[in-house]
């Protein structure tokens, strides 16, 4: 294309795309011997930058090459009018010189972002208090600060035909399995969608098993958590516009690990890890267990305890199943209400839902005392699981457990748990088994228990197959 046709083509494209846009600006300037034209969206650019670093220098040295005149770091040239149009939409100022054969793309975008806050959804007692924000560059900056090494690779792609959401793929070059990286890159490339509600859509579009309640990707807003997983050879996806990052491939156990575990003594860490596992089982099975023991196998319990239960259930009209369903539904409603409501009112809901309904429901003999205890324990236990996705999955799975055990008693509950185990064993992400029994010394180290740091000498085999040495001699001071 000759210089003249590029200019014409560009003008035509700009007219086509931006004629109806009220916040689009283009100005012609006659400076020196040449005519300049600049294009930008006034809502996207920082006008002070244009004034100080583009217009002012141009006025002083209108005839010199643009590269030497403008003092803007984010500088690019192109002879592709389509790219220039896209750049204008991305917040750049596009500069054209008459009879020039290049279009200049100058980064003057206005940066509007909130400051880095403390994590709101993944609180810890010990550990760093930084959370990702909506700006992709800031998030990558956080990660690069945490891993100041050339091994940290950041690859950018855009997803979404209209939204053109930027997605950054992070991994550690020497640790991560390159087949995973390739696979995820190809999956990201193959996404053909108009816009992306990141990272939820991406999670759904690249996951393997379509129908599973269990989360297959770990969502986190904590850079330190993302780093810990990167160092195990996993891949982190950051998306612009979202403070959540996706980590994959993860196993079932990742959802029971909390960043706290690694900040406190390993014994405490292990105990808390086991507590979380117990709570996972309580959430899944306690309502079902209660109902099946009440209505099928009361012979399991000591007679005195059965009498106590009996006395609390004496005036209740409904079968235990309905009681349990009612209370669990109530719990879900209260939970959802507290999430949706504004902060100051949220606490009121806690009082109304928890205390008022809980107490009155028992006093009016709609639900037995024991059932309130059971459901409350289930609810609280579910909130101990550190991943919101996993805790919701566990809570939702307690409904089928309840139904089948109200039909078949303990037998039904046993079948339910077997199905869960089989389902977990059959699931895999990127060929990494989602769940493997942790009954070997090697497998238990960071799953069932939190082994002391000096014992965790090797990275997990699944995600870091080639480069497995984590520590050489972590306690060199010991003779």
């Amino acid at each position, binding site marked *: 294309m000759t210089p003249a046709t590029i200019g014409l083509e560009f003008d035509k494209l700009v007219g086509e795309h931006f004629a109806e846009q009220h916040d689009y600006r283009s100005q012609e300037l006659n400076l020196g011997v040449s005519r300049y034209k600049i294009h930008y969206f006034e809502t996207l650019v920082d006008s002070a930058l244009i004034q100080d670093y583009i217009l002012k220098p141009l006025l002083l040295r209108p005839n010199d090459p643009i590269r030497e005149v403008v003092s803007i770091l984010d500088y690019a040239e192109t002879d592709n009018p389509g790219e220039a149009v896209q750049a204008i939409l991305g917040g750049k100022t596009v500069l054209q010189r008459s009879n020039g054969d290049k279009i200049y793309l100058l980064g003057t975008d206005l940066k509007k972002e909130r400051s880095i806050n403390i994590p709101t959804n993944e609180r810890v007692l010990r550990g760093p208090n930084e959370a990702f924000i909506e700006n992709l560059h800031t998030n990558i900056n956080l990660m690069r600060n945490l891993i100041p090494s050339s091994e940290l690779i950041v690859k950018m792609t855009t997803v979404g035909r209209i939204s053109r959401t930027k997605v950054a793929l992070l991994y550690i070059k020497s640790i991560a399995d390159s087949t995973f990286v390739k696979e995820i890159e190809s999956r990201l490339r193959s996404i053909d969608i108009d816009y992306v509600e990141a990272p939820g859509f991406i999670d759904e579009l690249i996951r393997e098993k379509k129908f599973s309640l269990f989360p297959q990707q770990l969502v986190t807003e904590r850079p330190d958590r993302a780093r810990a997983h990167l160092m195990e050879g996993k891949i982190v996806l950051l998306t612009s516009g979202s403070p959540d990052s996706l980590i994959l491939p993860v196993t079932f156990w990742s959802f029971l690990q909390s960043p706290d575990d690694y900040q406190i003594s390993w014994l405490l860490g292990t105990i808390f890890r086991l507590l979380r596992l117990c709570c996972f089982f309580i959430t899944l099975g306690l309502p079902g267990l209660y109902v099946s023991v009440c209505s099928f196998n009361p012979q*399991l319990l000591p007679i005195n305890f059965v009498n106590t239960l009996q006395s609390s259930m004496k005036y209740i009209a409904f079968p235990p199943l309905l009681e349990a369903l009612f209370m669990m539904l109530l719990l879900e409603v209260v939970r959802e209400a507290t999430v949706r409501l504004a902060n100051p009112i949220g606490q009121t809901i806690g009082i109304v839902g928890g205390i008022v309904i809980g107490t009155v429901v028992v006093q009016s003999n709609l639900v037995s005392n024991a059932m309130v205890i059971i459901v409350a324990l289930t609810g609280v236990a579910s909130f101990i699981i550190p991943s919101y996705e996993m805790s919701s999955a566990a809570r939702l799975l307690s409904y089928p457990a309840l139904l089948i055990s109200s039909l078949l008693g303990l*037998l039904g509950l046993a079948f339910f748990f077997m199905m869960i185990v089989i389902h977990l064993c059959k699931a895999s992400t990127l060929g990494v088994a989602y769940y493997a029994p942790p009954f070997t010394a090697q497998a238990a180290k960071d799953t069932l228990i939190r082994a002391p740091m000096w014992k965790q000498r090797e990275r997990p085999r699944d995600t870091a197959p080639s480069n497995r040495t984590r520590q050489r001699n972590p306690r060199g001071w010991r003779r």
Partner: protein
Amino acid sequence: MRREQSITARQLFALVLMTQLGTEVLSLPHVESGIAAQDSWLAVLLSGLAGQLGILVLWRLGSRYPERNYFSYTASIVGIPAKSLINLLYGSYYVFSGLLLGLQYSDILNRWLFIYTPRWIILLLILIVCGFAATASLRQLANVVQTFILFPILGFLLILFSGVYGYDATNLLPVLSNGWSPVLRGAYAAFSAYVGYEVLLYAYPYVDGKGGAPRILLTMTLANGCTTAFYVIVCLICSTMFSTRQLNVIPEPIVFILKNYRVQVLQSIDTLFLIFYLSVVTATLIVYYFLAAKAYMNLRNQGLGRQGAWVWGSVAICFVFGLFIRKRGLILEIASIQDRMSVFFVVAVPFLLLIVAGIRRYGGIKS
């Protein structure tokens, strides 16, 4: 066909142990006491040793063809048509055994725990769980089974602790009062309790390379040893708790013992044990249906059908037959047929194949 992923030696151990354990633990002391009386533990022990011989045969056969599984290498021993026949028979044997085991356990649950629940519902649920699991790959299967292994351990501890009180060691005396012949007959009767190590036939080529053939043999021996120990201890506990005459009328003495024993917070341990034991039974069934599907898939050299289709087909057939077989006597009859079949399929056929393979090799025919 998909290439199987490898499994570790530990996983092989779990697979073998869980497949060996079946409903027999519950009924073994009763059956044995009818034959070998107070020497039943000796019969069971002997039977375990015999099982070890069987393992040696299977291991020797497997180590000849470390690249392929049993259902495909038989072709190079006896030719393709015979291989197809053998696979067909094996598949049917496993489906048949699956049916029997499902019936037996749903019958036990029906008698001891869920008297009012229709038996076909219990059977249906067991079969659905098994079908769901048996469509997985060998490694996934091993993971499932390895997770379930917690429950026989718990069950074993329950049995062990319930045997603390009330035993009478004099019940074991006199040893060998009728000579060896009842003991040997008892060992034969206990043989089917040990069946399950034939998993090795299929799994051999997929066990992790580290340590090679000797390690596989060691793992198998360990698994068989654990099963033997489990059975012998169960028999000892039952024989010391009950007299021979009592044992002859109690079909599942273990449940009876557990029913009698209670701790502060749990009144009926037998319920817990029977529920725990469900995982053992399903693990065995899962392996059976898996092996059946694999045998059928190898009917043709290039593979035949999909694993899922074979598994669900076998499960459906078992369920339909299960609906018709309702009398306990009939189940016992089927069990005795299955006992003879398992001797044939687990010991006789592999042994013959091993001999044929040996002859062909020394005869200079390309094997």
